Protein backbone atom coordinates (compact mmCIF):
# COMPACT_ATOMS: atom_id res chain seq x y z
CA UNK A 1 0.00 0.00 0.00
CA UNK A 2 1.30 3.42 -0.94
CA UNK A 3 2.82 5.43 1.83
CA UNK A 4 4.47 8.82 1.71
CA UNK A 5 6.15 10.94 4.30
CA UNK A 6 7.08 14.62 4.29
CA UNK A 7 8.95 16.56 6.92
CA UNK A 8 7.12 19.69 8.00
CA UNK A 9 9.54 22.37 9.06
CA UNK A 10 8.65 25.54 7.24
CA UNK A 11 6.08 27.27 5.04
CA UNK A 12 7.45 25.64 1.93
CA UNK A 13 6.70 22.25 3.45
CA UNK A 14 3.07 23.34 3.94
CA UNK A 15 2.83 23.82 0.18
CA UNK A 16 4.63 20.50 -0.41
CA UNK A 17 2.26 18.69 1.97
CA UNK A 18 -0.90 19.90 0.25
CA UNK A 19 0.57 19.21 -3.19
CA UNK A 20 1.46 15.66 -2.14
CA UNK A 21 -1.97 14.89 -0.74
CA UNK A 22 -3.65 16.37 -3.79
CA UNK A 23 -1.68 14.15 -6.11
CA UNK A 24 -2.34 11.06 -3.97
CA UNK A 25 -6.05 11.93 -3.94
CA UNK A 26 -5.98 12.33 -7.71
CA UNK A 27 -4.36 8.90 -8.06
CA UNK A 28 -7.09 7.50 -5.80
CA UNK A 29 -9.70 9.06 -8.07
CA UNK A 30 -11.10 11.46 -5.52
CA UNK A 31 -13.36 14.08 -7.09
CA UNK A 32 -12.05 17.61 -7.60
CA UNK A 33 -14.08 18.82 -4.62
CA UNK A 34 -12.89 15.94 -2.41
CA UNK A 35 -9.28 16.63 -3.41
CA UNK A 36 -9.68 20.32 -2.60
CA UNK A 37 -11.26 19.51 0.78
CA UNK A 38 -8.45 17.20 1.78
CA UNK A 39 -5.69 19.50 0.52
CA UNK A 40 -7.22 22.41 2.45
CA UNK A 41 -7.45 20.35 5.66
CA UNK A 42 -3.82 19.27 5.22
CA UNK A 43 -2.79 22.87 4.66
CA UNK A 44 -4.39 23.90 7.96
CA UNK A 45 -2.82 21.08 9.96
CA UNK A 46 0.63 21.41 8.38
CA UNK A 47 0.62 25.14 9.04
CA UNK A 48 -0.28 24.50 12.68
CA UNK A 49 2.92 22.47 13.01
CA UNK A 50 4.99 25.30 11.52
CA UNK A 51 3.27 27.92 13.67
CA UNK A 52 2.81 26.22 16.98
CA UNK A 53 5.22 23.31 17.10
CA UNK A 54 8.33 25.10 15.91
CA UNK A 55 8.26 23.21 12.66
CA UNK A 56 9.41 19.93 14.14
CA UNK A 57 7.03 17.56 12.54
CA UNK A 58 6.03 15.32 9.71
CA UNK A 59 3.04 14.09 7.77
CA UNK A 60 2.52 10.51 6.67
CA UNK A 61 0.02 9.80 3.94
CA UNK A 62 -1.41 6.36 3.40
CA UNK A 63 -4.15 4.92 1.25
CA UNK A 64 -6.58 2.85 3.28
CA UNK A 65 -9.20 0.27 2.36
CA UNK A 66 -12.09 -0.72 4.55
CA UNK A 67 -14.90 -2.91 3.39
CA UNK A 68 -15.58 -1.81 -0.14
CA UNK A 69 -14.43 1.76 0.27
CA UNK A 70 -11.11 3.44 -0.13
CA UNK A 71 -9.75 6.48 1.54
CA UNK A 72 -6.68 8.44 2.51
CA UNK A 73 -5.26 8.73 5.98
CA UNK A 74 -2.86 11.50 6.97
CA UNK A 75 -1.02 11.42 10.27
CA UNK A 76 0.58 14.64 11.52
CA UNK A 77 3.15 14.21 14.24
CA UNK A 78 5.06 16.94 16.01
CA UNK A 79 7.25 17.34 19.04
CA UNK A 80 5.85 20.74 19.91
CA UNK A 81 4.44 22.02 23.20
CA UNK A 82 1.28 19.91 22.94
CA UNK A 83 -2.28 21.12 23.25
CA UNK A 84 -3.29 21.76 26.85
CA UNK A 85 -7.02 21.80 26.18
CA UNK A 86 -8.01 19.89 23.06
CA UNK A 87 -11.70 20.75 23.41
CA UNK A 88 -10.87 24.44 23.56
CA UNK A 89 -8.55 24.18 20.55
CA UNK A 90 -11.39 22.62 18.57
CA UNK A 91 -13.63 25.62 19.22
CA UNK A 92 -14.11 28.03 16.39
CA UNK A 93 -12.54 31.39 16.93
CA UNK A 94 -10.10 30.13 19.54
CA UNK A 95 -6.52 30.91 18.67
CA UNK A 96 -3.29 31.29 20.57
CA UNK A 97 -1.67 32.69 17.44
CA UNK A 98 -2.44 35.15 14.72
CA UNK A 99 -5.17 33.42 12.79
CA UNK A 100 -8.91 33.22 12.40
CA UNK A 101 -8.98 30.38 14.91
CA UNK A 102 -10.41 28.30 12.11
CA UNK A 103 -7.53 25.94 11.45
CA UNK A 104 -8.41 22.94 13.57
CA UNK A 105 -12.22 23.20 13.55
CA UNK A 106 -12.11 24.06 9.86
CA UNK A 107 -10.02 20.98 9.09
CA UNK A 108 -12.41 18.80 11.07
CA UNK A 109 -15.33 19.95 8.97
CA UNK A 110 -13.52 18.95 5.80
CA UNK A 111 -12.69 15.34 6.62
CA UNK A 112 -14.65 12.27 7.70
CA UNK A 113 -12.57 11.55 10.79
CA UNK A 114 -10.21 13.61 12.89
CA UNK A 115 -8.61 12.49 16.11
CA UNK A 116 -6.09 14.21 18.34
CA UNK A 117 -3.64 12.75 20.80
CA UNK A 118 -1.65 15.35 22.62
CA UNK A 119 0.54 15.55 25.65
CA UNK A 120 1.85 18.83 27.01
CA UNK A 121 5.60 19.04 26.67
CA UNK A 122 5.76 15.94 24.48
CA UNK A 123 3.90 16.65 21.27
CA UNK A 124 0.77 16.13 19.27
CA UNK A 125 -0.46 13.57 16.80
CA UNK A 126 -3.45 14.38 14.63
CA UNK A 127 -4.94 11.75 12.35
CA UNK A 128 -7.42 12.53 9.60
CA UNK A 129 -9.23 10.19 7.25
CA UNK A 130 -11.17 11.11 4.13
CA UNK A 131 -13.23 8.45 2.35
CA UNK A 132 -13.73 8.66 -1.36
Amino acid at each position, binding site marked *: MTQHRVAIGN*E*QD*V*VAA*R*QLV*RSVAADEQFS*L*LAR*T*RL*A*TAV*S*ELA*RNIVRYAGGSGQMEVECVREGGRSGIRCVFTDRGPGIADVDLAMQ*EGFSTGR*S*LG*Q*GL*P*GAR*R*LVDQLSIESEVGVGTQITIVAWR
Partner: protein
Amino acid sequence: MSTTIPILRLGPVLLISVQVELQDATAEALQQDILEQLEQTDADAVVIDISGLDVVDSFIARVLTDTASMARLLAARCVIVGMKPEVAMVLLEMGLVLPELETALDVRAGLLRLGYALRRVAGEVEGGRA
Protein backbone atom coordinates in the same frame (compact mmCIF):
# COMPACT_ATOMS: atom_id res chain seq x y z
CA MET B 1 12.81 31.58 -0.82
CA SER B 2 9.41 33.02 -1.47
CA THR B 3 8.49 34.49 -4.83
CA THR B 4 7.28 37.99 -5.52
CA ILE B 5 3.91 38.44 -7.16
CA PRO B 6 3.91 41.35 -9.61
CA ILE B 7 1.39 44.17 -9.38
CA LEU B 8 0.31 45.60 -12.74
CA ARG B 9 -0.88 49.18 -12.89
CA LEU B 10 -3.73 49.87 -15.29
CA GLY B 11 -4.19 53.57 -14.66
CA PRO B 12 -6.04 53.82 -11.34
CA VAL B 13 -6.39 50.05 -11.01
CA LEU B 14 -3.87 47.67 -9.47
CA LEU B 15 -4.17 44.26 -11.08
CA ILE B 16 -2.72 41.20 -9.44
CA SER B 17 -2.88 37.68 -10.78
CA VAL B 18 -1.81 34.94 -8.39
CA GLN B 19 -0.57 32.07 -10.50
CA VAL B 20 1.73 30.32 -8.05
CA GLU B 21 1.18 28.14 -5.00
CA LEU B 22 0.87 30.79 -2.34
CA GLN B 23 3.26 30.55 0.57
CA ASP B 24 2.37 32.46 3.71
CA ALA B 25 5.29 34.87 3.37
CA THR B 26 4.47 35.51 -0.30
CA ALA B 27 0.88 36.34 0.61
CA GLU B 28 1.95 38.71 3.37
CA ALA B 29 4.51 40.39 1.10
CA LEU B 30 1.85 40.87 -1.57
CA GLN B 31 -0.45 42.50 0.97
CA GLN B 32 2.34 44.86 1.96
CA ASP B 33 3.14 45.71 -1.67
CA ILE B 34 -0.49 46.47 -2.47
CA LEU B 35 -0.81 48.82 0.49
CA GLU B 36 2.41 50.60 -0.47
CA GLN B 37 1.19 51.08 -4.04
CA LEU B 38 -2.12 52.43 -2.79
CA GLU B 39 -0.29 54.93 -0.62
CA GLN B 40 2.28 56.00 -3.20
CA THR B 41 0.13 56.17 -6.33
CA ASP B 42 -3.29 57.51 -7.22
CA ALA B 43 -4.67 53.99 -7.60
CA ASP B 44 -8.08 53.61 -6.00
CA ALA B 45 -9.00 50.09 -7.00
CA VAL B 46 -7.47 46.64 -6.61
CA VAL B 47 -8.39 43.49 -8.51
CA ILE B 48 -6.86 40.25 -7.26
CA ASP B 49 -7.27 37.29 -9.58
CA ILE B 50 -7.03 34.00 -7.68
CA SER B 51 -8.03 31.71 -10.53
CA GLY B 52 -4.60 30.07 -10.21
CA LEU B 53 -5.20 29.00 -6.61
CA ASP B 54 -6.31 25.40 -6.09
CA VAL B 55 -6.42 25.78 -2.33
CA VAL B 56 -7.46 28.75 -0.20
CA ASP B 57 -7.14 27.87 3.46
CA SER B 58 -8.08 29.98 6.47
CA PHE B 59 -4.76 31.82 6.47
CA ILE B 60 -4.93 32.85 2.83
CA ALA B 61 -8.60 33.79 3.30
CA ARG B 62 -7.53 35.94 6.23
CA VAL B 63 -4.83 37.70 4.19
CA LEU B 64 -7.33 38.42 1.40
CA THR B 65 -9.98 39.84 3.74
CA ASP B 66 -7.39 41.89 5.63
CA THR B 67 -6.05 43.29 2.36
CA ALA B 68 -9.56 44.31 1.31
CA SER B 69 -10.23 45.95 4.69
CA MET B 70 -6.93 47.80 4.67
CA ALA B 71 -7.52 48.97 1.10
CA ARG B 72 -10.86 50.37 2.22
CA LEU B 73 -9.12 52.31 4.98
CA LEU B 74 -6.87 53.77 2.29
CA ALA B 75 -9.94 54.90 0.33
CA ALA B 76 -9.66 52.14 -2.25
CA ARG B 77 -11.81 49.19 -3.17
CA CYS B 78 -10.62 45.66 -3.60
CA VAL B 79 -12.34 42.89 -5.52
CA ILE B 80 -11.32 39.23 -5.51
CA VAL B 81 -11.99 37.54 -8.84
CA GLY B 82 -11.72 34.09 -10.35
CA MET B 83 -12.25 31.95 -7.26
CA LYS B 84 -12.68 28.34 -8.34
CA PRO B 85 -16.07 26.82 -7.49
CA GLU B 86 -14.53 24.01 -5.42
CA VAL B 87 -12.51 26.56 -3.46
CA ALA B 88 -15.68 28.53 -2.72
CA MET B 89 -17.44 25.36 -1.56
CA VAL B 90 -14.62 24.35 0.75
CA LEU B 91 -14.45 27.83 2.32
CA LEU B 92 -18.17 27.62 2.98
CA GLU B 93 -17.88 24.13 4.45
CA MET B 94 -15.16 25.40 6.77
CA GLY B 95 -17.55 28.07 7.95
CA LEU B 96 -15.68 30.90 6.25
CA VAL B 97 -18.40 32.93 4.57
CA LEU B 98 -16.27 36.06 4.25
CA PRO B 99 -19.14 38.56 3.91
CA GLU B 100 -16.71 41.48 3.87
CA LEU B 101 -15.08 40.25 0.66
CA GLU B 102 -16.21 41.72 -2.64
CA THR B 103 -15.99 39.18 -5.43
CA ALA B 104 -16.58 38.90 -9.16
CA LEU B 105 -16.31 36.01 -11.59
CA ASP B 106 -13.40 37.30 -13.64
CA VAL B 107 -11.13 40.31 -14.12
CA ARG B 108 -13.51 41.98 -16.55
CA ALA B 109 -16.46 41.66 -14.17
CA GLY B 110 -14.25 42.79 -11.31
CA LEU B 111 -13.27 45.96 -13.16
CA LEU B 112 -16.91 46.65 -13.97
CA ARG B 113 -17.80 46.24 -10.34
CA LEU B 114 -15.27 48.91 -9.48
CA GLY B 115 -16.71 51.23 -12.11
CA TYR B 116 -14.11 50.64 -14.80
CA ALA B 117 -14.68 49.07 -18.18
CA LEU B 118 -12.37 47.80 -20.87
CA ARG B 119 -13.37 49.63 -24.02
CA ARG B 120 -12.00 49.56 -27.53
CA VAL B 121 -10.98 52.95 -28.75
CA ALA B 122 -12.13 53.64 -32.32
CA GLY B 123 -9.58 54.36 -35.03
CA GLU B 124 -5.91 53.60 -35.44
CA VAL B 125 -3.62 53.97 -32.52
CA GLU B 126 -0.10 55.00 -33.31
CA GLY B 127 2.37 52.17 -32.86
CA GLY B 128 -0.24 49.47 -32.84
CA ARG B 129 -3.47 48.30 -34.33
CA ALA B 130 -6.68 49.53 -32.82
